[in-house]
């Protein structure tokens, strides 16, 4: 028997369906690997060992030969710790929710359960998903599996690191301004940020409601599409969710990409980017061109403003979304307080860390009387401008190729440098969220320091199938990239 940890979803699925490998064996293999590796990588906040073993056992018991089981039956997965799981700790990596056990399931978790998934645990992240380093977690930092002295990216850093180090077969992350794609790029995994509304946000602890989107993080494009199949679709509990296109997200995988049109944004080329990242992107462009893809150069000047609009809108929404953490109904609360205002003050001052407080203050400011038009309204105008510019761009091309991050994974000790400088790192990922588009991060190349470099494909709304198709073709070329 081959190594279970190396098998993709379809392979495992066939083995399970044919009763060649049991769900318990698979779960045990992954739990063992977590035990072996996570002491150093620290991807998990909670490992649900007992629940997983119990679940796998019951899945095995219910399985009869030739029965029609869902694709994720017995497949091990893990969730970013901002996705609510009934009866299991959901902390958002914050002291504020250090002991919070959700009384209900997020829609995505419900769907994965219905599909037969075995939950391995909950994954580390930046506190309340605000950050791109996974170093602001209340519990611990997560380290890059390719180099433990490096950051794994963030905020879905635990998800990326766990997938990369075979501590789960797939993970869900959430992406508000790049939080799936950037860690995917740093950790050499496939990360999809779907079109806004594709995946229900019900049960995702909100950072910025109009930008947040849950997406799959996997080792392969095909696995990614399979997981998106399982978690997507209109949810009556989320008014902003949308109907899923018919068929499967795998439908166009393997189709020829010849004669597709690929856009390249002129403005992005002018940015300060690490030369190895530039090379990786250029190689990808050349490769696509060789496959018969037509390259279209795009002029999108408004993208320069997207980053500012992003920080205004996301902070504004966050300041309101995080107001419910008041120490009254759940979460951290001081033992002593003089009155209600002091209860609020102590709970929030001590429950939130610096970065979260910074964004709450920023958001409160931009929504204040007298500043609303100047900041929030102006940011909304930029948002519409960016959307229009993308709409125009997608009249000329099927998808856009772009870098994910300006550099490879940085030293973990540099992770807490100047906040504004960190914010500017998100220039390539943020416009996608602003315009509610889908984008996928794919493993591109390894740097001289043996650190992963990813590339990003961006498509028009609801074009996930196109992105999987183009991404799969690229992945095939790239299949020599191995996992740790």
């Amino acid at each position, binding site marked *: 028997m081959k190594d279970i940890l190396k098998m993709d979803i379809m392979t495992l699925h066939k083995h399970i369906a044919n009763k060649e490998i049991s769900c318990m064996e698979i779960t045990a293999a992954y739990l063992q690997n977590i035990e072996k590796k996570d002491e150093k990588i620290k991807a998990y906040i909670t490992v649900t060992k007992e629940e997983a073993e119990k679940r796998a056992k019951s899945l095995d018991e219910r399985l009869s030969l030739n029965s029609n089981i869902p694709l994720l039956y017995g497949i091990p997965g893990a969730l970013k710790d901002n996705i609510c799981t009934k009866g299991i700790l*959901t902390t958002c990596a914050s002291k504020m929710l250090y002991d919070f056990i*959700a009384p209900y399931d997020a829609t995505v978790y419900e769907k994965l359960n219905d599909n037969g998934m075995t939950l391995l645990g909950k994954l580390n992240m930046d506190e309340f998903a605000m950050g791109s380093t996974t170093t602001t977690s209340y519990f611990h930092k997560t380290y890059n599996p390719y180099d433990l002295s490096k950051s794994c990216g963030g905020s879905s850093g635990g998800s990326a690191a766990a997938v990369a180090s075979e501590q789960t077969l797939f993970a869900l992350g959430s992406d508000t301004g790049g939080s799936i794609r950037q860690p995917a790029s740093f950790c050499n995994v496939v990360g999809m940020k779907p079109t806004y509304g594709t995946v229900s946000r019900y049960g995702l602890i909100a950072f910025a*409601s109009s930008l947040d989107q849950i997406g799959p993080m996997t080792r392969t494009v095909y696995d990614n599409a399979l997981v998106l199949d399982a978690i997507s679709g209109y949810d009556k*509990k989320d*008014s*902003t969710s949308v109907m899923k296109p018919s068929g499967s997200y795998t439908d166009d995988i393997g189709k020829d990409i010849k004669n597709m049109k690929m856009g390249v944004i002129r403005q992005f080329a002018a940015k300060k980017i690490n030369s190895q990242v530039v090379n990786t992107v250029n190689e990808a462009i050349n490769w696509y061109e060789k496959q018969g893809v037509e390259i279209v150069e795009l002029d999108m000047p408004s993208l320069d403003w997207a980053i500012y609009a992003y920080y205004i809108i996301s902070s504004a929404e966050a300041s309101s979304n995080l107001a419910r953490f008041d120490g009254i109904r*759940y979460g951290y609360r001081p033992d002593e307080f003089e009155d209600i205002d002091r209860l609020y003050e102590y709970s929030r001052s001590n429950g939130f860390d610096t970065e979260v407080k910074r964004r709450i203050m920023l958001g409160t400011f931009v929504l*204040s009387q007298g500043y*609303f038009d100047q900041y929030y309204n102006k940011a909304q105008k930029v948002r519409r401008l960016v959307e229009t510019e993308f709409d125009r761009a997608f009249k000329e091309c099927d998808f856009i190729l772009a870098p994910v991050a300006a550099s490879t994974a940085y030293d973990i000790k540099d992770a807490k440098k100047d906040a504004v400088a960190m914010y500017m790192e998100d220039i390539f990922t943020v416009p996608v969220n602003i315009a509610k588009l889908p984008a996928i991060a794919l493993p591109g190349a390894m740097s001289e320091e043996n650190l992963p470099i990813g590339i990003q494909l961006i498509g028009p709304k609801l074009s996930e199938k196109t992105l999987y198709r183009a991404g799969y073709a690229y992945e095939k070329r790239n299949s020599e990239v191995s996992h740790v």
Partner: protein
Amino acid sequence: MYKGYVMNIGLEVHVELKTQSKIFCSCPTLYGAEPNTHVCPVCMAMPGALPVLNKKAVEYALMAGIALDCEINLECKMDRKNYFYPDLPKAYQISQYDVPLCKKGFLDIETESGNKRIRINRIHLEEDAGKLIHNEKEETLIDCNRCGVPLIEIVTEPDMESREEADLFLNKLRTVLLNLGISDCRMNEGSFRVDVNLSVRKQDNFELGTRTEMKNLNSFAFIQKAIEYEFKRQVDSITENKPIEQETRRYDEKSRKTFSMRKKEDADDYRYFPDPDLVKIKLERDYVESIRKNLPELASKRKPQMMAKYELSSYDCEMLLTDMELAALFEKAAEYTKSYKSLSNLIISKKDSVLGILPEKLATIANMSYKELINAMTARKLIDMLLEKDFDIEKEVEEKQMGQINDEKILAEYARQALEMNKKAIESYKKGNFQAIGPIIGQVMKLTRGYGNPEKINDIVVKCLNDIS
């Protein structure tokens, strides 16, 4: 008018809509349940929970808007009003800020000097907050059952110029909402809450003065008293050269005064912005028209017909029309009797239980009342009895000797006995305390076992007292 000043009153009325479920989740809206039993992750603001707008709440709000002749904003949105308070679990209230569902309506009231139009500025949709309960251990407990109950806020222009006009408006508004069947409008249960904005001005000066807002007005009577007090307070203040400050004032029932709660400069900055968890509300014109077409008939249209047909007073018709079922029962019973006034008195006095009674039975009781065969108390008692089981009314009255005692000789004898027993009351009456007659009349009624003719008893007792020198 007071010292040459008049007042302008604008009202903000919060009305709880009686939809089955709350505005953003499927919890029931029922009043009076055990604390925190009608709650779920959404209305408790659990992390990650999302609101979904209840279509019925929009429909009810539209019904109010249409009935009050408002313009409907076919495209509007829900906004977040951010502030911290323990009864507000999300720390923001989902409401409507710059684009309300309905705007620019009106409601005409009938004042002594003729019809008057009160303009409605806007009606918007929002969610209610929870309730704080302060217990004897000086703890504050939170009940979230009311969190997320749908509300409409109806805001008028400052068009009312007396407490009577405010009272007329509120009564008529309440009737309209009851007719529509969209709210219980119970002030004691908080489903009809009124804030009063009041300012004063010199009678010949048409510019409005600085207004104050009064809160905590829990009954129509308190509203009247609060208006009266606040009007005089403002006029006195101005005539003493103390300018009025824009502020929120709380009405205190015990002292019947208003007290400053919060000055304008302390007002919260609510940091309103569109709620990103909810999509825009887009209404089809056809949908709004279908609501308009199916709107229940309003009392204001039925009232003149009813007054003419049954020769009833305006007040009686209004009372019957607060509930369309009551009005329908009246009309059915009126087919069996001509004693309309007695019938209407009977239905109004037993409006909470009368709906279970057959119309012909009601007519029989009304007839007997009109003919003075039974008194009003007996009439009401018969209704209670009929709710238990059905019987032949005339036979029952005869057998149980429930007929009204009209014989003046008998009543005079009872009066004599009663006066004998109440020497102190006689003295008090003679000293000018006319209320002292009450216990004497009560005593006579008791001697008739409750079947005496109240008017005759009153006349006889008054006569007897005046005869005593």
